[in-house]
């Protein structure tokens, strides 16, 4: 295992020190492993809290700041945070208008956020609402699965709902908006290599040199099927097709197209993929309103990419364009 780390057990704690040192406008609660906006709580504003296992950086800590999240909880590597962390974050950002939990749909995340919300209600009286993001079409949302996973849509949702929270919308409105964004987003990913979890010390799965895993998750969970390595144009259609089959993206006021790198894939390859995706979307009559290309929700050092499409209305588009000032996404500020 070749990683720029100290002890495999210290990666999350060490990275939090780095985030604190590099971003003076964020506050880091090392005991609880919570990253908070420097000016939190913002009185009268709904607090946005997300979090999840570490290893997906910049998600979520890199999205803390004006126009996006108020706090993020960093779990152990690929392991959802514990209720104590989530509760600490919730308390830290409660400005009197309630707190929205943005939860990716994984059994562990859902249960830990649930327990935290129970505790918050019982102990501190903070009004907590939550949205569970489940955009990954690789997983069928059926009785036979834990439901679709939350992947790329999380980034877009945190940006859009973060902008709406900054504009002063209330908890109910933000919860509804978050639900609407989630309902209009779909994702699909592909891995060329496995990631290596530091404490495990070896790749989570073995992929032969001439194969790739289609429908991969962001935790090195194997995907749905293994197929021969293919050129980018074929990979693009393996990503685009199941998404367009699942939801109609020709309606609405346009689509945000998000090609995401999984951590080990360089930007030049993401642009190659984006070119193919754009061509396919154009052919399918999907109008790209905005695009995002880069590693925003990663899976440690995994080589691969995911595609997220979000069908936006004009309001969402304005919220997307609104200023944001975080380490991971920044414009207009």
């Amino acid at each position, binding site marked *: 295992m070749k990683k720029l780390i100290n002890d495999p057990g210290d990666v999350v704690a060490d990275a939090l020190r780095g985030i604190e040192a590099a971003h003076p406008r964020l506050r880091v609660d090392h005991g609880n492993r919570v990253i908070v906006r420097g000016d939190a709580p913002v009185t009268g504003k709904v607090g946005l809290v997300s979090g999840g*296992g570490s290893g997906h950086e910049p998600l979520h800590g890199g999205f803390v700041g004006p126009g996006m999240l108020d706090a993020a909880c960093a*779990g*152990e*590597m*690929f*392991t*959802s*945070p*514990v*209720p*104590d962390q989530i509760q600490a974050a919730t308390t830290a950002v409660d400005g009197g208008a309630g707190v929205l939990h943005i939860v990716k749909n*994984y*059994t*562990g995340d859902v*249960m*830990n956020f*649930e*327990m935290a919300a129970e505790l918050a209600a019982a102990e501190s009286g903070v009004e907590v609402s939550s949205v569970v993001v489940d955009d990954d079409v*690789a*997983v*069928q949302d059926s*009785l*036979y*699965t*834990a439901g679709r*996973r939350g992947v790329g849509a999380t980034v877009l949702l945190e940006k859009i709902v973060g902008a709406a929270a900054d504009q002063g919308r209330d908890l109910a409105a933000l919860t509804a908006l978050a639900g609407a964004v989630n309902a209009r987003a779909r994702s699909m990913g592909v891995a060329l290599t496995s990631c290596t*979890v530091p*404490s*495990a010390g070896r790749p*989570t*799965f073995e992929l032969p040199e001439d194969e790739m895993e289609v429908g991969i*998750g962001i*935790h*090195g*969970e*194997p995907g*749905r099927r293994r197929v021969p390595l293919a050129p980018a144009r074929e990979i693009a259609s393996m990503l685009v097709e199941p998404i367009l089959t699942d939801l109609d993206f020709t309606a609405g006021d346009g689509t945000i197209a998000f090609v995401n790198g999984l951590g080990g894939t360089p930007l030049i390859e993401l642009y190659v993929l984006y070119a193919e995706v754009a061509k396919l979307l154009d052919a399918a009559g999907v109008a790209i309103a905005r695009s995002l290309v880069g590693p925003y929700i990663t899976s440690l050092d995994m080589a691969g990419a995911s595609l997220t499409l979000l069908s936006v209305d004009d309001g969402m588009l304005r919220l997307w364009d609104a200023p944001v000032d975080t380490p991971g996404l920044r414009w207009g500020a």
Partner: protein
Amino acid sequence: MADQLTLDTARAWVEGFAARIHAAADELTALDSAIGDADHGSNMTRGMSAVSAALDGSQTDIGSLLKKVGMTIVSSVGGASGPLYGTFFLRVGTTAGDKTALEPAEFAAALRSGLEGLKARGKATTGEKTMLDALAPALDALDAELSDGGSLSDSLATAATAAAQGRDATVPMVATKGRASYLGERSAGHCDPGATSMALLVDAAATAVSA
């Protein structure tokens, strides 16, 4: 040897579980690599190390001991196994109350309330390729042998065997809960990591009570 769960045997149970987890950590992670995200071993060792550190002798009844275990697991593990094992111990402890010794039937009832808590938290049932598939048959076997007049230690030994069989029975199952369910049919052919750690929990109970 009294045929009971005493405060000391409860403590030994927990410590025995911790020791088994530490010894099996790599195996648990390897199992989780195949159908999950390669962290069940590190999750459980982190939790049980925290538990060992938290048990300082200030817990003077079985209920507070096991609730402390549950709370510590909830606060230190995360993931799916944290809330599940945490809820299990919290419920067993709550049912046990402030007793310093549990009769066989009382212990069995406490364990069953833990099972119910775990089911409610995870919204799962048996046959879904989870830790429940080791725990449920173990408690059924325990109840059966106890009502046949078996001793607690014999019945727990039988329960441990049933847990191991339940664990092995997860191999051919297709997961419908947890991370392994993402794999669909491809989850078959692998032993469930949570069922494997759960079998260690039952085995630790049998050893602690018979010691």
